[in-house]
């Protein structure tokens, strides 16, 4: 362009041949510039179309809910799960995707689906629930069903850009009524025009002239699609021109069906907090909580109404406007012969029918998706995930995820006053399979951002004490009844400095049993024990559990002077919780390609890395953490009959508050702290444990009570003396050891003074925490 103006300035009127030459050059330059511009537009639109419309992002699914007799499940939970999956409640006859509740029974017509290449047919199921359990499960004919699964919840898709989400629909997933209605309302000559509808533009121009400004579009669907790609909403002539040109290019290169499908998957239809809702697939979920194919006439009409202005016609904020426009759309649908008079009238009388935006139903799980991406990145590159239409079956359980999010958010709110900005993380696994059931990366659960569960490296503190005790038990030199000194100790380090650890309460306790030292998280006893066993042995356990303390070993390792992320801690405790088998944590079960072939199964793989008797004994001591030690505050929040095992962790100066603990079937790890590493004045027992207990309470946790492994002597010992005792003695704790380690039996329940004195001390300790 610049060259052109330079040329014009140099025009010299008297020299005719030169002028002619200049005009020639000038014209050529203008044509060239235009061709270049058109070429550039063409290149932009085609790359955008090819990149966007035909990329199939990986669709990511949660773990399917299993229904079987005896399963713990409340009727409200089942109803919530069905609603998450877009099942509609009905009072009368059932159809696929509907359920009916009659007292304690839920009847549902489960949709057909494919799970990991295995087709699951549609099925009528009758689920009788009582006392928070599935009492019976029957099919439509009243025959017993041993096990049935619901289809997995779609929890997201892997897209190159964040802040945007959509559910990509295949041609057969788009109802014809929708595409016909779009044509009738938005672009009547869609099938005939070449991307631009001159008559519509002329009509709009006339209307604009009358209105004295640009207010009407006359845009074809193709032009709307182009506009959506580039997201410029300025109503200028230049933009209109560009749109028209690009629309023309698209029409030359693609069929009407391809363009319509791209439109259905692309167009902007609303805003869900920070996320733009694109495409009718996601919009159907967002507004009605069910898949597009199940929408009724009035619902389709509402979506078509929203197209014109998702904010102006927002059915939640401006229901009257949306309803008025829906009536108009229904009328146009009738006029176009898509529906008859009767249907139109009936549909116009229906309620607006949008579901209330429930964070648990339209949830977005960036932290869990982050974990999924990281697991998959070992085997797939970004292009595979974003374009190849893969289906990814994950291990997430939506109900557990919702419980974990709610627990973290609400407990942090409660703990926040008077403290630096608190944040936290929660990881929940099934320890037997190491499947990650839930992962929360921070308080703002719906937003992408720093994923504390995976990336916050923090001092582990006492959380790692079980590793020291496991080394001691495996050494054969100590059992849970062993007495250890809880007395001051000064360790001389290699460089000549000295290290003098202290107990958290500043006290010393003389001779204590190992079980008590761990339960009450006594630092001095732990250091004595760890030094007796040897740092190498302790480091060896770390390594077997998958954590390698780097560099030289310092005695401070015994008290957790090692930085771990919540997911690292989860891996360590997962090995404890399942009896000493290391199982790599998994977020993905299988990856299936666009043709339904299973590309990869991440099968369960286990490795025994600890002596079963020692692990069993250690876990019994971790039960005592909950019953008598630093976990009692969390314990009080759990049902009395629920036996759990756990450990608190508190770093220096109360900067980090950790809790890791398990029941049978669930391991929960929680961390609470400040991103800037400021002291938050919370111990593991007062901060993270509150979040932990809340998660544990809301999941289907069963008591931790595995059978003692062969070679283990299970017995009751006195918590204070370590002598074998009767189970009904007040200080009796249930432990295990090898036969030769079994201590002699006490003559009575321990001395009276010990009993009363210790009880009072215990009482004080609990209150002082």
């Amino acid at each position, binding site marked *: 362009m610049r060259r052109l103006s330079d040329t014009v300035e140099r025009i010299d009127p008297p020299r005719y041949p030169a002028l002619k030459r200049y005009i020639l050059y000038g014209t050529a330059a203008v044509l060239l510039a235009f061709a270049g511009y058109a070429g550039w537009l063409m290149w932009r639109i085609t790359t955008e179309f090819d990149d966007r419309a035909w990329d199939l992002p990986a669709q990511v699914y949660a773990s399917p809910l299993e229904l079987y007799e005896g399963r713990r499940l409340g009727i409200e939970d089942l109803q919530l799960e069905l609603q998450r999956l877009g099942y509609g409640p009905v009072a009368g006859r059932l159809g696929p995707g509907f359920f009916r509740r009659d007292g304690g029974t839920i009847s549902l017509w489960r949709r057909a689906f494919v799970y990991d290449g295995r087709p699951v047919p549609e099925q009528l199921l009758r689920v009788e629930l009582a006392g928070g359990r599935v009492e019976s499960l029957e099919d439509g004919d009243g025959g017993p069903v041993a096990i049935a699964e619901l289809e997995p919840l779609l929890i997201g898709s892997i897209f190159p850009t964040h802040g945007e989400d959509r559910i990509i629909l295949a041609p057969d997933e788009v109802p014809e009524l929708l595409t016909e209605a779009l044509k009738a309302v938005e672009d009547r000559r869609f099938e005939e025009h070449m991307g631009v509808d001159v008559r519509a533009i002329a009509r709009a121009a006339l209307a604009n002239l009358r209105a004295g400004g640009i207010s009407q579009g006359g845009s074809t669907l193709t032009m709307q699609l182009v506009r959506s790609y580039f997201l410029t909403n300025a109503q200028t002539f230049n933009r209109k021109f560009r749109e028209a040109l690009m629309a023309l290019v698209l029409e030359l290169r693609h069929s009407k069906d391809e363009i319509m499908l791209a439109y259905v998957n692309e167009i902007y239809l609303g805003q869900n907090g920070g996320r733009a809702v694109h495409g009718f697939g996601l919009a159907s979920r967002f507004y009605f909580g069910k898949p597009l194919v199940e929408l009724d006439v009035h619902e389709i009409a509402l979506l078509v109404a929203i197209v014109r202005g998702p904010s102006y016609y927002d059915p939640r904020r401006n229901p009257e406007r949306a309803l008025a426009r829906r009536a108009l759309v229904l009328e146009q649908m009738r006029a176009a012969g898509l529906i008859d008079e009767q249907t139109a009238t009936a549909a116009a009388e229906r309620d607006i029918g949008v579901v209330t935006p429930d964070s648990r139903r339209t949830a977005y799980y960036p932290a869990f998706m982050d974990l999924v991406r990281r697991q998959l990145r070992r085997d797939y590159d970004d292009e595979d995930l974003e374009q190849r239409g893969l289906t990814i079956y994950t291990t997430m359980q939506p109900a557990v995820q919702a419980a974990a999010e709610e627990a973290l958010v609400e407990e942090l709110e409660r703990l926040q006053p008077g403290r630096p900005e608190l944040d936290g993380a929660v990881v929940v696994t099934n320890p037997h399979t190491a499947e990650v059931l839930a992962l929360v990366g921070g308080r703002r659960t719906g937003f992408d951002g720093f994923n504390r569960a995976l990336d916050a490296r923090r001092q582990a503190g006492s959380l790692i004490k079980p590793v020291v005790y496991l080394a001691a038990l495996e050494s054969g030199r100590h059992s849970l009844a062993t007495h250890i000194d809880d007395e001051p100790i000064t360790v001389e380090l290699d460089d000549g400095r000295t290290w003098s650890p202290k107990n958290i309460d500043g006290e010393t306790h003389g001779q204590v049993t190992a079980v008590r030292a761990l339960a009450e998280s006594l630092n001095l006893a732990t250091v004595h024990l760890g030094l007796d066993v040897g740092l190498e042995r302790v480091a060896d356990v770390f390594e077997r559990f998958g954590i390698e303390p780097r560099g030289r070993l310092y005695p401070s390792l015994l008290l957790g002077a090692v930085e771990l992320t919540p997911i690292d801690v989860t891996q360590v405790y997962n090995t404890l919780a399942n009896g000493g088998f290391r199982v790599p944590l998994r977020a993905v079960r299988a990856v299936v390609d666009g043709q339904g072939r299973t590309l990869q199964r991440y099968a369960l793989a286990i490795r025994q890395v600890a002596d079963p008797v020692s692990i069993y004994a250690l876990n019994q001591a971790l039960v005592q953490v909950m019953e008598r030690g630093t976990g009692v505050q969390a314990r009080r929040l759990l049902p009395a009959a629920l*036996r759990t095992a756990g450990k608190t962790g508190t770093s220096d100066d109360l900067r980090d508050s950790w809790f890791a603990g398990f029941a049978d079937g669930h391991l929960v790890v929680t961390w609470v702290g400040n991103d800037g590493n400021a002291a938050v004045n919370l111990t593991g027992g007062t901060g993270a444990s509150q979040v932990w207990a809340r998660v544990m309470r809301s999941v289907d946790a069963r008591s931790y009570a595995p059978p003692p492994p062969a070679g283990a002597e299970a017995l009751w010992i006195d918590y204070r003396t370590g002598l074998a005792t009767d189970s009904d003695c007040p200080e009796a704790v249930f432990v295990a050891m090898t036969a030769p380690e079994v201590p002699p039996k006490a003559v009575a329940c321990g001395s009276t003074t010990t009993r009363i004195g210790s009880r009072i001390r215990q009482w004080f300790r609990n209150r002082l925490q």
Partner: protein
Amino acid sequence: MKTWLGAALLCAAAAGCTTSPYRFPSPQPSSRAPSPQPSSPSSPRPEVQEREPSPASVALLERSRADRDAGDYAAAAASLERALRIDPNNALLWIELAEVKAADGDRDQARQMARKALTLAGSDGSIEARARRLL
């Protein structure tokens, strides 16, 4: 009090001399399983239930056996994993999975899962016999 302490220490020290750091389960089941009486309210007793496999895991087990007979070891393993999510402490499921792994040529996982079955077998001699064959 002092003598008890001494006795406990002596016993613990003696135990240290006789146990190896790595123990393998002996064929004798534990003779001193916890007794099922109520204890002090603060300390619930572990109630080890030797639960019958649920109808759900039995159904999955049957499906897995059918897949295994048909030579589809991946599907057989997937069904057992599904059953283990329901019944994780069931030694029978673990030993079946170990045998599927062995049939599939994965000797390493067959051994590991047999060990897992052993830690859960309790007094079930048949599980133990099947595990021993794989170890």
